[in-house]
């Protein structure tokens, strides 16, 4: 121990500093435990209460009328259709914007478009819902297409950003080599750049899907007046799982509440599994690109 340290120790300062460090460590550990604990609480509630009301009936029957138990079959199908169409709209647009930003745009324009994407990402979902209501639903009626359009507005910035980040990781030499060989620009992108990034794009898409699968606000005004039977007509409003959970959550009927927990379990399972898959895909993709082939 140096003379300095002996000095500090004798004056007690080092000991105090070590105590402070231990206290901070304890606080940090408790915080992490608190966060994990809350997660466990929420998911635990959903899992236990949801599992007990999950049944084959629940998954195959449509919404019930007043006093009837019913199920979420119509909501599962509706959600699948609405999110599916939203993905079909958002992926091409998101990927194209990302390609523009990373391959064609000058630095200033690229920054500008990225700011626009960030702004789009920050628009509250409820405002998106009002907007789509105002431009599509008024005069025409609610529809799954309107709901899909609203969800795609939420998905585009997520997919564009993920795609753009992965495109930025592709070495410039790859493009230059292709161009030097005389391959046209568009073919370079399609045959050379995109294939190496497909994993990242899929990841971004899966994450965006996981995010909007649980969105309620945009669907409240665009696809909430629905039939009481299974419907696949996209020009009509279709029920969705988040809106169903929203309705169940407010009801006094214990049967409705049980349905709410079970629907939440279905939704959370889907979202969690999708997130885990996306994360695993992302790790692989990033490792492959940065670690070289």
């Amino acid at each position: 121990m140096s003379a300095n340290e002996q000095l500090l120790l004798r004056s007690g300062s080092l000991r105090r500093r070590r105590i402070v460090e231990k206290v901070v460590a304890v606080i940090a550990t408790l915080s992490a435990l608190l966060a994990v604990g809350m997660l466990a609480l929420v998911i635990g509630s959903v899992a236990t209460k949801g599992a007990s009301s999950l049944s084959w009936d629940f998954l195959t029957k449509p919404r019930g009328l007043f006093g009837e138990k019913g199920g979420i079959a119509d909501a599962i199908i509706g959600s699948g259709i609405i999110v599916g169409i939203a993905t079909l709209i958002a992926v091409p647009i998101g990927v194209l914007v990302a390609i523009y930003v990373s391959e064609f745009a000058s630095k200033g324009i690229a920054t500008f478009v990225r700011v626009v994407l960030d702004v789009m990402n920050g628009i509250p979902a409820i405002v998106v819902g009002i907007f789509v209501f105002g431009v599509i639903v008024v005069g025409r009626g609610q529809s799954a297409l309107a709901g899909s359009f609203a969800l795609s507005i939420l998905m585009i910035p997520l997919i564009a950003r993920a795609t753009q980040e992965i495109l930025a990781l592709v070495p410039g030499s790859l493009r230059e080599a292709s161009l030097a060989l005389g391959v046209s620009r568009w073919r370079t992108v399609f045959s050379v750049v995109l294939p190496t990034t497909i994993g990242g794009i899929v990841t971004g898409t899966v994450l965006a899907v996981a995010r909007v699968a649980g969105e309620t606000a945009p669907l409240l005004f665009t696809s909430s007046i629905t039939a009481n039977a299974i419907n696949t007509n996209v020009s009509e409003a279709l029920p969705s799982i988040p809106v169903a959970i929203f309705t169940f959550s407010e009801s006094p009927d214990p049967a409705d509440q049980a349905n709410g927990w079970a629907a939440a379990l279905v939704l959370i399972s889907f979202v969690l599994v999708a997130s885990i898959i996306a994360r695993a895909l992302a790790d692989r993709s990033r490792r492959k690109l940065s670690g070289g082939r």
Partner: protein
Amino acid sequence: MKKGLILSAALLCAAVAAMTTAGVSGATVSEGTRANAGTLTGAGATFPFPLISKWIPAYDQASGTQVNYSPIGSGGGIAAITARTVDFGASDAPLSPDQFTACKGCVQIPWALSATSVIYNVPGAPQGLKLTPAIIAQMYLGFVQKWNSPGIKKLNPGVSLPDLKITPVYRSDSSGTSYNFTDFLTKTSPTWKSKVGTGTSVSWPTGIGARGSSGVTGVVSRTTGAMTYVDVAYALANKLKFARVRNAAGKFTLPGLRSINAAASSVGKVTGNGEISIVNPAKSQPLAYPISTFTYVLAPTSSPKAVELRKFIYWAITSGQQFGPKLLFAPLPKGVLAFNYRQIKKIQG
């Protein structure tokens, strides 16, 4: 390994697809297809939803027409039919002249009759606690704050009321039941009239708001000391206690078929646009429950679904009424029926 992950992703998609297919096939087996007949889509008041829920399967059997109804509140129903996003709307609040103009040719047809109960969650209190309009107004104004306050105790001698805070619960969405309840309070309490007034949506002085008849019933069932106003069928379905309310004749009445009929009995000929108020009937009706109300269906005079609409509404006000009494919906008086037949004829294609 990458193949493994893509395989997992594919499995996930396959699982979702499988569940969806199972859902569709399971449902088509049990529900039958709708390919044959027409459909009618409506939205609006939560008040008549218990009765409409009985109508839907019965009418499907009787006519093959599938009726879809979304209980989003009377305001939502008025907005939806005005924007023609549905085939018919439903509202317990009659349309104002401005709303009629905005609706561009809508008919208003009173198609059911019931009562708004005042429900409460007070441990130890019996069913049928006696309340006066004045006390109810004071509770919702925030002037009377505890269940064991002198005003309530005086009305209910011999009842042990706990020292529990009163939490008034109101509809946060635009509600015809709110209209009925505030109409009643406006007509019986000058303070309420000047401070708050009547409407499907008002500025509530105090309490907690919730969406839909379902939502307010939910809050009351979870919160001791809470009270709210809601169609009596919801109180019955959720086994919640509701109050005896004093009418103009000084009698404390419960919502029931007899008391609702008594309130509606003063309705003679119906004219104009069909708006009928039976709130706080005169003391010549000693049996009347003072917070009774008609509830209306709103249909466009010019609609591509005119034929189906006429048939459905006619069925609802005739055969459909048989499902009412169990849910405390009283049969429509003759004068109202006569008016309705005339209104139905106005729905043309």
